[in-house]
């Protein structure tokens, strides 16, 4: 295993710049998710790293080995030692589970005890029973296919594992268990991994580092909590989780907005856009403390609920509260903001 370093990588299709000057470092043995809406260039980035595409500019290095880049002949995918897990697994339909997992092993190992041991080890790693080795891909569920695809990619001990939206075709319950199993397997093997997804929950819950892409550019890469709590601009804030963005005026460490006075993460002055997470908006049902509003709509999820409130001045605000006791549409409530709030100057930088 080795680290992955991408520096200034650019790739265009016709006049469209799919990946635009992207720089990203994935430390050895860590897990990074690349998060972005569809068409943002994240899959193209993955294919550039795998070697299926050649960058026009920039370099890609596994550890100290440059595999593609300025002045270096691009290494073909088969010599890069990448593990690639595409959507829906793409298991070889004509081979059973064992043959799929052993596919990338050296020819002499495939038929030998060494290969069989490696297959058993990999099945164990992805938490599948040993007797699955003789099953055919069409006898596996979607989640099991993904686990076999991961086992297949890990068997030849790749430098880096690349996962392309591997859980997008699974239903909600399978997605959680499969992604956790994948995470455990990657951790157990201390594998450097990069997963691309458009699912923010998946991106935040799995990774050590989240890289947010927008229109071909990498706009932020940081630990999940930092991306969530301190997004680089309001657009990232609205893409990573729900956000209430209100105009306000800052004076040092405080600012005023439709929700009253809030405390800022960093002092600043002048007109600002304030990013408040819905769970920071406290809905007071009992007291008349805070800014008054009327509940427009309540979406109840059991563990919590989302409450859309129209303030008296007409501003619409989303609040999230525990599901044990909640208002109903038409109730009058009072809102106030808890915790620190991130402020952005109109240009986008705080």
């Amino acid at each position, binding site marked *: 295993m080795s680290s992955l370093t991408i520096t200034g990588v650019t790739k265009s299709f016709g006049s469209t710049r799919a990946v635009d000057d992207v720089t990203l470092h994935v430390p050895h043995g860590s897990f990074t998710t690349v998060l972005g809406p569809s068409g943002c260039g994240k899959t193209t980035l993955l294919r550039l790293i*795998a*070697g*299926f595409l050649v960058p026009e500019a920039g370099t890609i290095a596994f550890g100290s080995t440059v595999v593609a880049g300025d002045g270096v002949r691009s290494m*073909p*995918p*088969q*010599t*890069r*030692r*990448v*593990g*690639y897990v*595409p959507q829906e697994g*793409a298991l*070889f*339909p*004509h081979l059973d589970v064992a043959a799929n997992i052993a*596919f*990338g092993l050296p020819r002499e190992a495939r038929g030998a005890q060494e290969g069989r041991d490696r297959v058993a080890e990999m099945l164990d790693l992805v938490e599948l029973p040993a007797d699955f080795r003789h099953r055919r891909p069409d006898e596996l569920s979607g989640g099991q296919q993904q686990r076999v*695809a991961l086992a*297949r*990619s890990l068997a*030849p001990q*790749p430098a880096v594992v*690349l996962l392309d939206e591997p859980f997008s075709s699974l239903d909600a319950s399978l997605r959680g268990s499969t992604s956790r199993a994948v995470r455990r397997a990657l951790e157990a093997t201390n594998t450097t991994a990069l997963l691309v997804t458009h699912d923010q929950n998946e991106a935040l819950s799995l990774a050590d580092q989240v890289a947010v892409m927008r229109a071909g550019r990498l706009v932020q890469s940081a630990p999940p909590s930092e991306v969530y709590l301190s997004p680089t601009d309001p657009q990232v804030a609205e893409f990573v989780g729900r956000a209430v963005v209100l105009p306000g005026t800052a004076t040092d460490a405080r600012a005023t907005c439709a929700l009253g006075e809030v405390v800022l993460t960093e002092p600043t002055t002048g007109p600002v856009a304030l990013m408040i997470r819905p769970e920071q908006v406290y809905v007071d049902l009992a007291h008349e403390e805070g800014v008054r509003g009327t509940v427009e709509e309540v979406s109840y999820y059991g563990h919590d609920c989302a409450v859309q409130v129209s303030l008296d001045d007409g501003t619409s605000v989303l609040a999230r509260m525990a599901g044990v006791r909640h208002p109903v549409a038409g109730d009058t409530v009072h809102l106030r903001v808890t915790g620190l709030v991130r402020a952005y100057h109109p240009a986008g930088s705080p």
Partner: protein
Amino acid sequence: MLVAGAAVALLALVPLVYVATYVVIIGPADLWQLLARPRIAELLRNTVTLAIACMAATAALGVSLGLLVERTDLPGRRLWHGLLVAPLAVPAFVNGYAWVSLDRSVHGFTGAFTVVTLSYYPLVYLPVVAMLRRLDPALEESAWSLGHSRARTFRTVVLPQLRPALLGGALLVGLHLLAEFGALSLLRFPTFTTAIYDQYGSTFNGAAATAMAVVLVLLCLVLLLAELRLRGDRRYARLGRGAARGAVPLALGRWRWPLVGVVGAVVVLALGIPAFSLLRWLVVGTSTEFPVAELAEALVATIALALAGAVATTLAAIPVVWLAVRHRGWASTVIERSTYVANALPGIVVGLALVVASLRLVPAIYQTAALLVAAYVILFLPRAVVTVRAGLEQAPTVLDDVAHSLGTGPLATARRVTLPLIAPSLGAGAALVFLAISTELTATLMLSPIGTHTLATEFWSASSELRYGAAAPYALLLVLVSIPATVLLMRSDSPATTTERVPV
């Protein structure tokens, strides 16, 4: 691959280029002089009348039988289905022989109409049945729930959805008919195809034959374009996912047994008569003999030619399909489409084109097996392309990506991933072509090297000399080699498989 694909496309276009070049060289005035003759008018009238009458009759027969077997409580539906498809295993020229050898009065329009309709109605019946099986009963249930009667639902919901299968099948019958030589020649009903052969065979009148070929190709192109247009408009019957349920069969009540009688009569005419006639000649024919050595020789020659043709056609299909599936672009589209032109080319035109082209350009290959194999490639390429394409589409490029990422180079990926995945479709494509070549008559008659006797040519020389008994063993062998293809067609639920059949 591009070069190989372009070469295959060029070969496929030889007959069309030949016909077009002829038109250009001879000029419109001379062409008109050749065509503006009472004989040509008669041929045109015969060909068009027979085509329209047969298309209408096969459509009516195919849909009625399809509905009876699929949507009613007709007793023994499975058995009837098998028996109604079985006539496909009897080549039309063998069927023609069976009728004419039984009763010499079967000839002319009535004879041709009867025999050809009975031979070709399965081409409508099969896609109609396949479509009826695919129709989502939820659509009909929705119509009933909206207050439509069963009859009105059939008219407004079922029939419109059957239209593509019905028209597609009927147009295919038309294409087959325009290409039909053997049956119509035996039944003494002259059409363009039989007249071209006569001109070529008796007087070697290339100009007159080619002038008629021009008209024939134009007629075929009209039908092919209609069929292509129709196929482009075709919509999938089922939009949603989930398992389709069977439709509730209509109770026939007191009509049950009379209708069994009707279906039985069709089976007797389409299957019983040829079987009876063939068996009769085998048993009692005065000229019947079993020249084992000659039969074996013809069988071996047929198998060798069919094998060579199947291998060559399948190999030729690979670059075409590879480009069409893996490297989409205008060049790939042009190459793939040019192979489909053969769908409109009767064996007689391909034969004529290759005779003239080889004599003019490469005389050395005239009268060689290589030229005959080239004709088979042109004629049956569409069949191989469709089958191989279906296979390659089952091998998505993401599997190559995965194999590369696991350290496998391009050649090893082809060997370990792509080939094993497309092998079944290569095999199926080759098998379909093999079986089609085994019963091909027209091009084989025109192009087979002197001294090469196949089942079809031996059958033809005996039956056209009225030695019906001598023809019988060959006819039997021809039917036997047709059975596997018919079973394949019966098994496939896909209307596409049947509509890809090309004229022979």
